[in-house]
Every structure is written in C-alpha cells, then in structure tokens.
C-alpha cells in the first residue's frame, strides 16, 4: 500500500497574524507555519490504513517555500516515511491552478495507490486544488471523505462522502485522489520516538527544472489571479454586556430577541 499525502504549510490560523505582504501576496514569513489542519487528518487516516494492513509506505509531498522541511518534520514524526519537497523561487505567489499543475507533475514521478489531500487549506480555503490535480492526472477523484476503505487485493477503494443528509458511498478503481475531511478522525500527536526518528527520514527536494516545468508558464509570474485591492470589514456595533443572576441574563436575552423580532 503506497500512499502519497499532500502537505501544505500554512500560516498558523491560531495566531490571527496572517497578512498580505507589500506585493499583496500572502506574507508567509509573517507568522510561523504549521501543517494545514485537514492535511493532518488525512495523514492520520493514511497512518491507520498502513498500520492495519501491516505494510505500506507513506510519502509526503509538499510544494512550499524553502524552509518547509521544518514544518514537514511534525508530519514525519507522526509516522510518514519520507518527504518530497517541491520548491523553487519562481513558485512564490503561485495561483491555485498553477499549484495543481506543479503537484500533478511531481506526482508523475512517484508510484502510489492513493493520493490523499486535505479537502481545503486554512489559508486559501478554496477546496479546488485536489480536484484539479486529479483531473490533470486522469485519476478518479473522491472528495469530502469521512471514511476510506481500500481493497488492495481487488484494486478498488470505497469512500464515504459527506452529504447533507448523511453520506454517499463511492467506489473507484485504484489509483485515486481522495480529498479528506476532519470527519476521518483526530490526528495523533507524534510520540517522542517518532519525533526523534523524524530526523533520520529523507526529504528529497525538487525544483521546477527537476520536474521538467518551464518557469515562464507557471508560478508567480504566470498567476491566473491577482489581488486588486484590500479593505477592512465593517465593524459590528458595541457589545452589550450583562452580568448578574442567571435569570437577569435570561430576561435580557428574551427582551433582546423580542426587540429584534426574532421571537
């Protein structure tokens, strides 16, 4: 069982410090990077599958700035076996479409049964890159996975895709691209042994040239989108704070709701 897990370092969402740089691109140096939340969930799913099968390898794949290996370390410490880091100065400021092409090109060099990706990332929140990668690779795309059940002998996989009323049960032949969600189950914290073992795991670096891609048509210079301007959102009014007994609070809430014609 060979699984490639796409990992995106993103500005730590808990920091509330993300900002755009002077070029109106995301300033990735403003705030320390962490592994995108959803990526940890799909990595955990991959780890559980490999553990249950008693065999298998998990390769991390990341398109990220040069300092990404530090962020990949946690994912390696969780139990992934190796990493591939695609990095190139020309990739700074890449749009989503470009990112998908680059990751697809990197995947062409790898062998795998499944590619797992977090369904979206906390910085862009677009949710389109995994679908685009699958289309580039001509692979089936199974999204919004809450459960992943491969049948290696039969070379198929079944996925529960979250739906408004419950889930759809999907099936496709391997290899596939799967977009996973938080519903897959909480990621493990790396064990101390895992943390120490991570330092011995290999991270291979690939540039655009290594992937056979021409920087003229890809990356920041060829971005399909651009920020035209920014502004601050309108502020809400002042907060009314109520202290006192629970019944005082309840009374004021009822009054408030009535004033607003909500009840």
């Amino acid at each position, binding site marked *: 069982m060979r699984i490639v897990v796409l990992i995106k370092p993103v500005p730590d969402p808990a920091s509330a410090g993300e900002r755009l740089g002077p070029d109106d691109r995301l300033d990735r140096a403003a705030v320390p990077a962490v592994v995108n939340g959803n990526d940890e969930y799909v990595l955990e799913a991959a780890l559980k599958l490999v553990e249950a099968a008693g065999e298998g390898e998990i390769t991390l794949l990341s398109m990220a700035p040069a300092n990404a290996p*530090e*962020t990949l*370390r*946690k994912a390696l*410490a969780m139990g992934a076996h190796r990493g591939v880091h695609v990095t190139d100065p020309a990739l700074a400021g890449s749009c989503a479409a470009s990112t998908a092409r680059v990751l697809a090109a990197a995947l062409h060099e790898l062998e795998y049964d499944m590619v797992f990706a977090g369904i979206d990332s906390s910085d862009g929140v677009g949710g389109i890159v995994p679908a685009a990668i699958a289309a580039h690779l001509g692979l089936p795309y199974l999204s919004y996975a809450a459960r992943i059940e491969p049948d290696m002998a039969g070379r198929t996989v079944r996925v529960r895709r979250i739906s408004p009323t419950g889930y759809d049960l999907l099936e496709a032949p391997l290899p596939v691209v799967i977009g996973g969600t938080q519903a897959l189950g909480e990621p493990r*914290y*790396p*064990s*101390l*042994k895992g*943390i*120490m073992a*991570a*330092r011995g795991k290999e991270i291979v670096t690939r540039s655009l040239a290594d992937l056979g891609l021409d920087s003229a048509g890809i990356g920041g210079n060829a971005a399909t989108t651009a920020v035209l301007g920014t502004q601050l959102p309108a502020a809400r009014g002042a907060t009314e704070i109520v202290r006192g007994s629970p019944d005082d609070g309840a009374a004021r809430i009822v009054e408030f709701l009535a004033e607003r014609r909500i009840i």
Partner: protein
Amino acid sequence: MPVVTASTPPTYRLTEEQTLLRDAVRVIADDLVAPRAAEIDRTGEFPQDLRQLLAAQDILALPFPVEHGGLGGELLSLCLAIEQLSRACATTGLILAVQGLGALPLLMAGTTEQQARWIPRLASGEHLIAFALTEAEAGSDASAIRTRAVRDGDDYVITGAKRFISHGSVADLITVFAVTDPDAPRHARLSCFVVEVPTAGFAVTRLEHKMGLRGSPTAELAFDGVRVPAANLVGDEGDGFGIAMRTFDRSRPGIAAQAVGIAQGALEVASAYATERRQFGKRIGDLQMVAAMLADMDAATEAARQLLYKACVEIDAGSPDASRWSAMCKLVAGDAAMRVTTDAVQVLGGYGYIEEFPVERMMRDAKITQLYEGTQQIQRLVVARALLGRDD
C-alpha cells in the same frame, strides 16, 4: 570567563524538533498528569500509574543513548520534558529527573558492558534507578561520607546508611557512593557502585514525611553487609567523588527545569485568577500592585528558563565551565520558584492558602529546589569559585 566552543549551536531558539517534543510532553502533562496532582499530594503515594505512563510514552527514555533504547540523552530535551511535567505535578517531573540523575554515573563512567547490562531497562522504564550519596552526617559535605565498601574476594561488602534518597524505596537499582580508602586524600576516598535491589542486607528503614513533593518517596536506606560483585564498581576505586561532582554538572539543570516548571504552573494559576477575580469593580489583575507582582513573577520565570536552556546547550557542547552553568541555573531557578510560588499564593489571597487551589502545594513543592542536589549555598560556592578561582 565562559568559553564558547565550536559546537555551540548559534541559535537562541528551540529547534522544530525540540518544540515538538516540548509540546508532546505538555499535552501529556495537561491531559493525564495534571488531573492527578492534587490527589498525589494528598495521599502521599508514589504514582505508579504515572510512572507507567512516562515509560509507555518513552519519556523515561530521554536521558539515555539511542544504542541502548534511549532517545539520545540531550540535556535540553530532557529538561524541556521535566519542565512540562513539573508544571503539572512536581512529583511526576521528579520521576524523570531522578531517572536521569541516578543513571548519570553509569553513563559517564560505566563500561560498555555495564551500560549494556542496565541501561536498556532504565530507558524502557521497566527499572527505576536512585542516587544514594547523602548521609545523615554528610549533606553538603559529601566528603564526610562514612558508608564503607570493603573488597572481599570478587565482591565488595557495603555497610552504612544513606538518608534523603529520592525513590530509594521504589528503585530497582541504586547508585551508591561508599568509602573504599579511608586514608586517601578527601577527594579520592569514595567509589561508586550500582546495587541491584532487593538484595540481602539492604533495607528501607524510613520514609520521610515532607513539606512538599509528597508523592515522591524519600528514603533512609540501610546497607548491612550488602554484597555487590566487583563488576558493579563504576569507574575505578577512588573515582567516586569526581563522578558525583561531574554528575551534578549534568543533573542540576534537571532540578532547575523542575523549578522553572513549578514556577510556570504557579504563574499560570495566579494569572488566570487575576483575570477572573474582581474586587473594587475591576479584575484584580488591573490593580497595579497585583499587576506588578505578576509581571515580576513572569520575568523571574522567563529569566530562569532562558538561563536553564542556555546552560543545557553549553553543558552538552562540552563547555569547560559546565559547573558554573549548572550551579548558576539551579541557583536562579530554585530562588525563582520559591519567590514565584510564594507570590502566587499572595495573589490568590485567602484562596491561595487553601487546598482548593494548587498554589499552596506548588509553594510547598518549590522549597525543595533550594535544598536538594546541592543547597543554594553550595551553588553559590561553585559560582564564586568559578568567578574568583582558587587561592593557590
């Protein structure tokens, strides 16, 4: 003057790996250790469940080299873990610290065969090890030790008593310092042995009832003609004093880490209290006298922490001033812990004095960091000597 060696890391920040490790231990401390802390203090029972937890999480493997099943033995990594555990429960932090302390003579002076024999089960946490130097009449003055070890054929026979030995009643191995040559100069009288217990002639004769660190058993140990094979001698005869002193150079930061952890835990309780408790129409943290106390507590804790981290890096880099770094960080951290916990009780006012809040326990726990592994006065002697040199 302190000397920076070539292998001293140039950065003042924790590496990603160290941060991950610290955070991993913090999660365990918050989720699994903290809920037990009050009960451990109240019952005074050694928390075997938490000892198993530390073993299962490979935390007890931190002080040991990889080739024997450990996680590398880096001092800063070890101290990061002790600090996080002590933040939740000083007794639990000490389980890790003593495991490191007790094994240091073996790691520093043991033969390959001795290390291969004992370290794997220490790293796995299956065995605990204690450090038995102190005696009733030999506290700060280690050269006043009277426990004797007499060569008899292929064995040594150990007779005497040790006092105030942490984990003395729960350890499987005891590192014992005894006099092998009473006529030698002061610093060459002692030798170091590993005693595997239980064994004939060995007994735990007393367990102390202490002000703090109540879950940690502090034992008086009697050695009544205890036989150990000569193969259990660590280093050569007469090396004992030097081994003990070199041990403290690496173990004192562990106590500093415990102290920093205790201080941080108290600071967090006091800060949280100061943001919730309201008097005179505002939260008490906004009253300047309270704010000033908290600020000083935070600064003292951070200063102790940064000195500790720096000391660990210097000691691991082989600094010739290891004794100075070790003594200094323990001195500063112990005093910080006592001050911060006392002030934490003060911030909580009457609530700080009752068992409902943990700060009174933290204050009682903090005191020992000014006393063991060398009193603060001994630490000052070491620092002064490093500063002024000897009067030759």
